[in-house]
């Protein structure tokens, strides 16, 4: 049986949800699965892993990797790979993965196929060209690193069982760590609780300019909804960052997600595709948001939404 290594991410003391999906993916591929946990919280996470169907869990505790740093993690993962010689290294496609996994790839000269949304045998599906097309990517090497995008596999499919953990000794030298990190922090307290909102009106680049943002707030007011946005709107400074949905923002699953002028890049979609009803308005009939929408409204939101607001007001008065 093939050896698979799953690198588990510590998300402030517990297992990152995408690590659970990565384990579910590894189980589906099938093999002798070793999980690797690193850092000060490694024992607590290893404890979580003890009731999951794995071959075993390797625990790395070393003062140079007690918290995440790219140099230390790269070297630890390299040493573990050289020790257990897996055919596949699997990890969730998180920001941390993007930060250090390419270095493992370069250091060991093995391919890193990132951001996978589906797989069939040895062909991996990955979005390309602003999520408008999919591509099929394959490895030309005996050993490969794969990172799975959110919801490629479901954490609920993770098979339970029992497995033991053991410490893995790494050889790290202070000269290997060339960076020093301060404590992570949050910038501004959120003024709205998007994660518990029932109805959300979300704005994308298609709103065209800041002067048009009030249209979204008016629609939200008529519906009794909260307003959120996609990354380009936040980057333009039109709305504060606590309103951002997607991989660098919030994950939501409201009863209604009304997407105005959102193209549907994967980084956005991962944060909202669990919504019960998705209505998307976009001028571009090929916008990727329409692939996950329940209702795809092709047209100009600057014409449709003001008219919709009037119609809803009339409706409420009746």
């Amino acid at each position, binding site marked *: 049986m093939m050896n698979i290594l799953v690198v588990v991410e510590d998300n402030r003391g517990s297992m990152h949800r995408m690590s659970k999906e990565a384990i579910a993916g590894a189980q589906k591929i099938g093999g002798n699965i070793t999980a690797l946990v690193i850092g000060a919280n490694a024992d607590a996470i290893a404890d979580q892993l003890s009731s999951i169907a794995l071959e075993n869990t390797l625990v790395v505790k070393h003062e140079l990797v007690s918290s995440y740093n790219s140099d230390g993690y790269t070297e630890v993962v390299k040493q573990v790979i050289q020790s257990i010689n897996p055919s596949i290294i699997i990890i969730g496609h998180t920001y941390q993965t993007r*930060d250090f996994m390419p270095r493992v790839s370069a250091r060991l000269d093995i391919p890193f196929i990132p951001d996978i949304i589906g797989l069939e045998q040895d062909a991996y599906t*990955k979005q390309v060209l602003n999520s408008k097309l*999919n591509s*099929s990517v394959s490895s030309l090497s005996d050993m490969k690193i794969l990172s799975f995008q959110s919801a490629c596999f479901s954490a609920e499919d993770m098979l339970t069982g029992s497995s033991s953990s053991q410490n893995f000794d790494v050889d790290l030298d202070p000269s290997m760590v060339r960076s020093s990190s301060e404590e*992570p922090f949050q910038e501004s307290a959120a003024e709205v609780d998007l994660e518990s909102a029932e109805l959300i009106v979300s704005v994308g680049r298609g709103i065209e300019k800041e002067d048009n943002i009030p249209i979204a707030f008016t629609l939200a007011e008529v519906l009794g909804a909260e307003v959120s946005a996609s990354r380009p709107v936040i980057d333009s400074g039109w709305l504060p960052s606590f309103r951002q949905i997607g991989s660098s923002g919030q994950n939501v699953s409201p009863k209604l997600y009304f997407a105005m002028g959102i193209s549907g890049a994967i980084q956005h979609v991962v944060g909202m595709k669990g919504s019960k009803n998705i209505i998307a308005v976009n001028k571009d009939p090929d916008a990727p948001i329409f692939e996950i929408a329940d209702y795809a409204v092709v047209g100009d939101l600057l014409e449709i939404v003001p008219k919709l607001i009037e119609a809803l007001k009339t409706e409420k008065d009746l």
Partner: protein
Amino acid sequence: MKIAVLVKQVIGSESALEISDDSSWVKEKNASFVMNPPDNYAIEEALIIKEKIGEGEVVIVSQGPARVQKVIREGLAKGADRAIHVEENGQIETDPLSIAKSLTSALKDENFDLILSGLQSDDTGMGQTGVLIGELLGMSTATLAIETDIDREQIKVKRELESGWFQWVKLKAPASVSIQSGINQPRYPSLKGIMGAKRKEIKVIQSQNAEKKQSLDKVFVPQTSKETEIIETDLNSTVDRIVEILKSEVKVF
């Protein structure tokens, strides 16, 4: 401070996408090409850092066929000092490790203090070239920088983590840093800049063909898994239908 900015030319988001006959990619002759949008932020950040320090050099580095000189000129017009074009003839490489090795051999004798790149490309979106090159050149690396604090003494960047978290990281020079979109307001080239760019040096180097480690075999139109009702009609009927959906399907009132 000597700064390299990795720049890629990609198919624009507004461009028509027609899959090529062998499905290996899209037809280039119908496509319009632009500077990879995230790379604009990397160029701007490099120019800001140079202006702040008051000395140094910003060098645009791009791999691709002859057409990529258009985006190289754009970078020079914005204020970069010179450029290196790693020219590909024939097959355009998509394997990030091969691209990184080719760029590394073009960059290794330059001894850059800092390499900046966009967080990922809008075409293949592998999101790793800057980090791979950093590793291959033995540099420090950081990704998704949303603020920088860089002077002669130190390289400090604010990394974006997930779900609204951030972290400041201090890196030993030299370093390769990928820049998160939105970090700054990229400038437009001035007329003077555009004229001046014509006299700036573009050094052309042939790309190296490293052994491929992964291959992008084909592209295809995504299959939608969901049943989607498409509403594409006149304005009044569209609005009526949305009201009906909100009332009877979503039950907002």
